[in-house]
């Protein structure tokens, strides 16, 4: 699974993207956040306040309960501040 990070999520994780094999118990966006948070301090820091992190599946905004099977790309980022 391709994971992409933006803005301070990217800075905290320490990379802008990576490819990871997800274990079978990770089925939703919420599961993925929990699993990533256990992978190291950088991830734990990025997701320490999970409510402030948004997600997208294949470039469409996704809620925590969205199923990631079939997606090519999951992105995590802070609330948008464009405009």
């Amino acid at each position, binding site marked *: 699974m391709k994971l992409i990070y*933006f803005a301070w999520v990217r800075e905290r994780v320490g990379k802008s993207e990576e490819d990871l094999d997800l274990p079978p118990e990770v089925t939703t966006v919420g599961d993925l956040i929990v699993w990533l948070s256990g992978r190291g301090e950088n991830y734990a820091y990025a997701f320490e306040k999970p409510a402030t992190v948004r997600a997208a599946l294949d*470039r469409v905004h996704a809620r925590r309960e969205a199923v990631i099977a079939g997606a090519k790309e999951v*992105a995590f980022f802070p609330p*948008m501040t*464009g*405009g």
Partner: protein
Amino acid sequence: MATVRVQREDFDAGLEAAALARGRRDVGAVASFVGYCRDEGGTLAALDLEHYPGMAEAEMARVAAEAEARWPLIGVTAIHRFGTIAPGEQIVFVAVASAHRGEAFAAAEMLMDYLKARAPFWKRAIRADGTVEGWVAAKEADDASAARWGAAEP
């Protein structure tokens, strides 16, 4: 059909707005909006705007399609810049053409509210004293502005 562009370079807002009516005789109203970078009382040297390539365009097109589904619009253009933007420079543009002014104003304002709440752009402030500040926090007011159109949460 909406025109959506995400680009580093500046744009000509007047030309973009006029293009929606050019050669037409059914357009009665063009409402347009330009968002500029402010210097916040002299403390801001520049904004650094990061975006999610691909998703930014897609989300702007979805927002435009929602406006087109809600009102009888003749044309919609939305442009958002990324990269380093200095005070006084243009950041974002929306324009809407329709037969009557009510829907042009409403759609332009909805587009801006939705863009701010949903389009994947993130601002970082570079201060006049050279420090790079943290990322600009999203304003609850922006989510509230988007919510008043009956939008689902992004």
